[in-house]
């Protein structure tokens, strides 16, 4: 199947650092892809780079092919039609991502006016439907409310409604549940999955929470220090990781079934993007590392059906 969005060699350079360094990813129609990694692994930057939301100091290279055109070189007016109209994005913190001085209704209808040419009463009706769709009760009355008059979960729902207003085919969700209470997190994830089905979208969820990925995604890409370490279907990757870093991540998860068990964690901290170690970037923190890990470049290679790993010790890791 041809991918909906095909990313090749995506790099983001800021100053002397390269926080995103040559990422390849494919997103299939109708699939939910999870991108996991620690803070600073480049996962949010990659997402923003695709929609060209980064400040001009950030130099973005590579390609992101969407409908046969490269989003990274598309002229600005065409790009504007893609943003919101074809690819939408929801952000981590709805309190800061929604404009505090504009009513919720306006923040939904402005997108409708630009993409679907819906204005006035028609836009209002559609906005009410959208708020209804994301599960905000008494939607028509809520249109005139301001973000500070909503609860955290409601704000996130409202932002999702605003993002999805113009019927995009792909939703990029940047840590969509991180700022929310656990009980609300679950509701928002279920809402995203339901909307994905109802609106026939693909979804990319960026998160540091492996539980979110396990519960919602079909496929997952593990990022570390700006590079893809491993990709594969969620089920096989989580049960048989083929990269030492993925294994480390999974082992640092608290397990409700084995309470009071000592967590293993990963020693040390991610490298500074301005001073990356040679060879595999995870090698300095890795318990499996050999001398060979500290030299040369890593490429993704098949480690199992549908699963790619950049770890030269994949077989040992899978046996562990």
């Amino acid at each position, binding site marked *: 199947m041809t991918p909906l969005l095909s990313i090749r060699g995506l790099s983001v350079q800021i100053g002397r650092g390269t926080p995103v360094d040559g990422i390849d990813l494919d997103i299939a129609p109708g699939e939910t892809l999870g991108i996991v990694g620690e803070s600073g692994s480049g996962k949010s930057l990659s997402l*923003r780079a695709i*929609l060209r*939301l980064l*400040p001009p100091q950030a130099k973005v290279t590579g390609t992101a092919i969407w409908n046969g055109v490269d989003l990274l070189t598309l002229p600005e007016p065409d790009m*504007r*039609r*893609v*943003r*919101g*109209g074809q690819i*939408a*994005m929801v*952000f981590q*913190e709805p309190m*800061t*991502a*929604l*404009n*505090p*001085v*504009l009513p919720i209704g306006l923040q939904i209808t*402005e*997108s409708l006016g*630009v*993409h679907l040419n819906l204005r006035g009463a028609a836009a209002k009706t559609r906005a009410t439907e959208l708020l209804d769709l994301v599960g905000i009760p008494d939607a028509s009355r809520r249109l005139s409310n*301001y973000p*500070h008059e909503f609860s955290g979960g409601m704000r996130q729902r409202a*932002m999702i409604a*605003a*993002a999805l*207003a*113009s019927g995009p085919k792909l939703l990029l969700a940047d840590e969509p549940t991180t700022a929310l209470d656990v009980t609300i997190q679950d509701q928002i994830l279920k809402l995203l999955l339901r909307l994905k089905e109802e609106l026939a979208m693909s979804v990319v969820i960026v998160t540091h929470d492996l539980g979110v990925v396990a519960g919602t995604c079909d496929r997952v890409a593990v990022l570390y220090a700006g590079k893809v370490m491993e990709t594969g279907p969620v089920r096989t990757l989580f049960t048989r990781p083929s990269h030492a870093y993925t294994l480390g991540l999974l082992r640092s998860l608290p397990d409700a079934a084995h309470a009071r068990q000592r967590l293993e964690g990963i020693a040390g901290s991610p490298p500074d993007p301005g001073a990356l170690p040679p060879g595999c970037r995870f090698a300095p923190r890795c318990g499996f590392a050999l001398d060979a890990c500290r030299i040369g470049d890593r490429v993704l290679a098949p480690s199992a059906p549908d699963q790619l790993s950049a770890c030269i010790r994949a077989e040992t890791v899978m046996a562990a």
Partner: protein
Amino acid sequence: MYVLAILGRRLGQIVATVVLVALLIFGLMRLLPGDPALMLLGDRATDASIAQMHHDLGLDRSVAVQFWEFLVHTVTLQLGDSITMRVPVISLVRDGLPITLLLTGMAAFLALLIAVPLAFVSALRPGSWMDAAIRTVAQISLSMPVFYIGLVLLIVLAAGLHWFPVGGIGNGFFQDLYYLFLPALTLALSLSAVLLRNLRQSLLEVLNAEYVNFATAKGLPRRMILTRHVLRNAWVSTVTLLGLNIGSLVGGAVITETVFAIPGLGRLTIDSIFARDYPVVQGLTMVLAIMVSVVFLLVDTVQVLLDPRMSK
């Protein structure tokens, strides 16, 4: 509704301010050395005429009663008569107030007209040569005294190039606008520098805000993002700053009106201070205090309208 509630609360504060200013003026007049009756009667004063004058001026009654009368007179705009010009103070105010209001209003408008576009140019390309040039010019106009700016404009644009009248006031509203342009510009320059610096800073902050990213991600045109999302938010602190500076604008009007020979309240204040015309000084202080309070009230209202979170 919440706007009305806030207006009501602020109106109460204005009344309190006016009473306090009245108390201050009343107290200061009492602290002045010498007897007003003696000053009015001069050398021909006899004990009988002084007593008569004390009675006429109400000085033989208790201080509390005198203050109450002073308050009642202030509220009913009976500000007394000018000693030197022998006309009611209120008629002097009625003549001068529209001119000073027009001057300060024009100055505030011109300041915004200069500051807003330049702040945008500066903030959209921070660190560019345009940004550097704008900030340098702002710094210079901020550090020059108002009377100096006024004299330079006067010498170059009025006396030298004859583009504007050298001073005075026109005949009718539109001619007034023309006559008041240079003085208003004088007042506006330093104010616009203050506003420019503030607006540039808040624009820079807002441009990096996540809601601007979200607005971009929704595919909105750049102009819509800049006006609706960026300026709307950056405004709030600048409007506050403008309101706070109205007081100093009135202070600046005192100097500017003197430099440009404009018959407004500012020049009247200076003239009556030099002439020891206490009733006029007293009346003008009251009027200016009320004027500034009303401007603060307006600023608060605009603020609530601009930022709904303020109503909390």
